[in-house]
């Protein structure tokens, strides 16, 4: 369960990236976050995993009170989350296999189990043959799929994906959506920021539209668009 109460986020003097956000996302939901470039989608998402901290307001993620949690607890918050970063954030000096394994090593899984799981998710995103490559040897879309594979590897309670199909062709995007929906059916909450109107309209789910830091729309099965005006 994720809950935002009166959340504000101000970056510097003038930039208010989150403006009084009140939202509740229950376990098992699938939520799109849409909105124009620079509206505050990534900020909204980053606050969930404590990369950015709210200037004021209360955020609850699973059982963590983000405003009052100790720095030491942060890693444990993140272990229950699977995150696809907008800029991928793969470790440049680890191979693809090792990058995904890393997310499992931090929770001290056994090597055999790690190997099995990594192979499984690599297969899922259809990149098993790249497991020994380094990130810079992959195409943009391949890197993005690795980021997705890493995020689902530890079977997170919540999957947070920031623009996970930005570098993927429509067909591959459909494959990724199939993975996300399957994960969601198994009980994982999925939160996905996206600009992909085709996807949003083809796979309808709850839709949050953010504009100028505000929640402009919150609609179950809403079509792509914001301020009630579809594109």
């Amino acid at each position: 369960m994720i809950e935002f109460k009166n959340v504000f986020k101000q970056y510097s003097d003038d930039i208010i990236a989150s403006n009084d956000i009140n939202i509740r996302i229950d376990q098992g939901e699938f939520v799109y976050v849409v909105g124009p470039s620079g509206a505050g989608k990534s900020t909204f998402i980053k606050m969930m995993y404590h990369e950015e901290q709210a200037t004021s307001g209360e955020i609850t993620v699973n059982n963590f009170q983000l405003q009052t949690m100790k720095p030491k607890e942060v890693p444990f918050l993140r272990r229950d989350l699977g995150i696809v970063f907008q800029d991928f954030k793969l470790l440049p000096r680890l191979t693809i296999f090792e990058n995904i394994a890393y997310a499992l090593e931090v929770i001290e899984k056994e090597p055999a189990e790690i190997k099995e799981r990594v192979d499984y998710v690599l297969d899922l995103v259809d990149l098993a043959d790249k497991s020994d490559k380094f990130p810079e040897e992959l195409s943009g879309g391949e890197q993005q799929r690795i980021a997705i594979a890493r995020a689902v590897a530890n079977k997170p309670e919540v999957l947070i994906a920031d623009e996970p199909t930005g570098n993927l062709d429509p067909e591959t995007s459909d494959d990724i959506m199939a993975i996300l929906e399957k994960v969601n059916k198994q009980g994982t909450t999925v939160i996905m920021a996206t600009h992909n109107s085709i996807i949003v309209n083809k796979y309808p789910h709850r839709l949050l539209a953010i504009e100028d830091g505000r929640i402009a729309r919150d609609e179950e099965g809403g079509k792509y668009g914001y301020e009630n005006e579809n594109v």
Partner: protein
Amino acid sequence: MKMRTFKRHLGESVKSLRRNGWMSVAAISAVTVTLILVGVLLSILMNVNKLASDVENDVQVRVFVERKTTKNQQDTLKKKLESYSEVKKVTFSSKKEQLQQVVGSYGNEFKLFGGDDNPLYDTFDVQTKEPKQTEQVAKKAKTLDYVNDASFGGTSAKKLFKVVGSIQKWGMIISALLLFVAVFLISNTIRITILSRRNEIGIMRLVGATNGFIRWPFLLEGAWTGLLGAIIPIALVDFGYIWIYNGLQASLASTSYRLLTPGTFLAEIDLLLISIGIVIGALGSFVSMRRFLKI
């Protein structure tokens, strides 16, 4: 920490050291060069120190024996001198021998005074256990029977003590400076390599790694860097020192001066170099990472 996790960290540190390529090479060679300097200078400083105290040990008490003393009385005096707890060695030197020395320094005309005309005294040269005890021993010797006078070098010995003292003091200061510099430069190099990897550390935190989990491989990598950086300096100092030691042994044989024997001395230096490398490498990593592990 589980044994498995430690093994994982160890493997990770080796992997990272290899994959960082030129960065690792640069860090290791910085450690190497720093430790070579430390090794060479410390070897020299410690030997200068040793030589200085050898020079000091040359200072001795000269006891002038009354002219009309018999052989027996001389022996008694010698025993008496040897009985002092501060005394290490007593050597007899006849007035004849001494005349030779005077002749050497001041001209042949002194040869006139050979035989019974010799104006000099037989002496006992007394070596003390500690150089500084000479004054005290000389004072005591003056009061003994059959002793005409006793000298210990007086002001010139005191001056020597001062010079040796200040050489040793400066040696300590330089050694301390040197160790500080080594510690600083090694940890600073490690710091720079870690600064250049702050993005990676940030990503590790974002995927749920605890500070300890992130820190261990870096710490071990720092230790490896230090360890690898210490190998060449140790080899260089060991072989170099033994080579120089053997080379100088012949020319020092005739004197009372000796370099520090390689055995224990090199063991100490090696231990010092390798510990600076490993400890500062690891500690440097540890400290440098704190900044990036705040939240």
